[in-house]
């Protein structure tokens, strides 16, 4: 069986400007942050991003890499809740927003996973969601009437992805991978909706150890769903990756504070985002000791 182990920069080497990229996790929870940091180090830009957004989307916006975003929400999950860089991108009109109900994002990934052009969903009707989509979002009439009247529903288009980036707790070199916390989020759907699928994990172990460590139901990804495996301990930082670690609330606050002026942001970039992932993790350890 194929050995799919890669480095962070090798993964990013397979991405291209202009791609539609799905980012797993949820808000500030188990985000593929090491892969996002690797994109920041690259010259890849002009991305369309699909995400239950958190600081992943924020960091990509901070570097002007997002042209269009499909999202159900963007949240840091703790005070001050609103991501500063996403807010900046929105208030400056820097990206085209395809905002939608959270359930529509799941629905669109499921349509892509099943190679369907759309799936009907009730969520979105009557709201401003269709107006966000500027003609991209249509309705569909049921061929099965209810008491003589057909229902007209949102026809959620498939959210087909060029690439999916997800972070899980444990995996093997072939792409079998598991989560160990309370929630799988939607990482399997992101992989099923994508052409190229990359999973970063806290630890790469032998297959036998993986399946002995977690219950069967936690084995979220199989080999058919993964093209590349990266060992990235701390790779979801500063989001949480239960059961390995919680959110680094102090550092997340530091990220938000640093976004307030060009000078403090440049310092944040110089300290955390210009070197390698190892240098980032070392700088984060120093921050924790000093804080």
């Amino acid at each position: 069986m194929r050995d799919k182990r890669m480095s962070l920069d090798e993964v990013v080497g397979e991405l291209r400007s202009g791609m539609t990229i799905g980012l797993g996790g949820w808000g500030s929870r188990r985000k593929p942050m090491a892969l996002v940091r690797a994109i920041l180090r690259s010259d890849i830009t002009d991305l369309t991003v699909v995400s239950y957004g958190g600081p992943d989307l924020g960091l990509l916006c901070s570097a002007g890499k997002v042209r269009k975003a499909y999202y159900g929400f963007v949240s840091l999950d703790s005070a001050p809740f609103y991501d500063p860089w996403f807010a900046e991108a929105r208030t400056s009109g820097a990206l085209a927003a395809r905002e939608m109900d959270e359930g529509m994002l799941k629905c669109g990934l499921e349509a892509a996973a099943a190679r369907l052009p759309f799936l009907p969903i009730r969520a979105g009707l009557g709201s401003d969601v269709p107006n966000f989509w500027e003609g991209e979002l249509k309705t569909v009439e049921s061929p099965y009437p209810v008491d003589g009247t057909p229902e007209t529903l949102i026809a959620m288009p498939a959210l087909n992805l060029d690439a999916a980036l997800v972070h899980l707790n444990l995996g093997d070199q072939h792409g079998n991978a598991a989560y160990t916390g309370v929630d799988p989020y939607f990482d399997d759907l992101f992989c099923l909706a994508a052409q190229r699928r990359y999973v970063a994990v806290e630890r790469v172990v032998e297959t036998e150890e993986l399946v002995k460590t977690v219950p069967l139901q936690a084995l979220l990804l199989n080999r058919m769903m993964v093209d590349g495996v990266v060992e990235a301990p701390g790779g979801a930082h500063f989001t949480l990756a239960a059961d390995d670690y919680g959110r680094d609330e102090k550092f997340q606050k530091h990220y938000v504070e640093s976004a307030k002026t060009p000078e403090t942001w440049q310092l944040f970039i110089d300290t955390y985002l210009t070197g390698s992932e190892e240098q980032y993790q070392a700088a984060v350890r120093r921050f924790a000791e000093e804080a």
Partner: protein
Amino acid sequence: MTSIETVTRAEICAVACAEIFSGAGEIMASPMSPMSIIGARLAKLTTEPDLLLSDGEALLFAETPPLGGKAPIEGWIPFRRVFDVVASGRRHVVMGANQIDRFGNQNLSAFGSLQQPTRQMFGVRGAPGNTINHATSYWVARHTKRVFTDRVDIVSGVGYDKVDATNPAYRFHHLHRVVTNLGVFDFGGPGHTMRARSLHPGVTADEVAANTSFEIAGLAEAGRTRQPTAEELRLIREVLDPKKIRETEVPS
């Protein structure tokens, strides 16, 4: 000994939030802020024992913990299963709101225009799906003209004037209550407009009118929000919120 004489506005609000769930039965209660969480848990401990309550993350509580506390669990409700529950209709959510208009349109997304807002909040989150699928109520800790506005900037939660009566896909839409620091409201006014059900003790109709951009139906006739029972006060003060977090949301 709990003293009825010293009942605070926050305690009145907690009981009004509990009454949102009166008669709800065996459904998932999804309160989104401390006051509505106290309310849902109070309902479960008094008249609505069959409610399902989660920890707000992925676990269903078997017992009813205090605010911020842990409890034994009875099940698993990760986010993707929440969306299944939403679509099933077996849920009553109590959301917050940056804006609400007289027909119940709600905004928690952003202020300004869709593609270039003046202030970014969360985006629409689950508000469109919640409001089109199952009972939805709102909790507003500070009742002001800014919140209760003539027109919301972005419709996240669907109001009654957006309902297409010719399309049965809208048949599950139901906005149940709006509870604020000033009173209890619904959308039983003319043409499904906002109506006062009761004002909290000490609140006048003029005060509500002065803090609302549009006319509220039934404001002059609205009665008093009821006082908590001694048992409800005990549960709020000693069991659910001994740290008085409710008082930070609605100061006395």
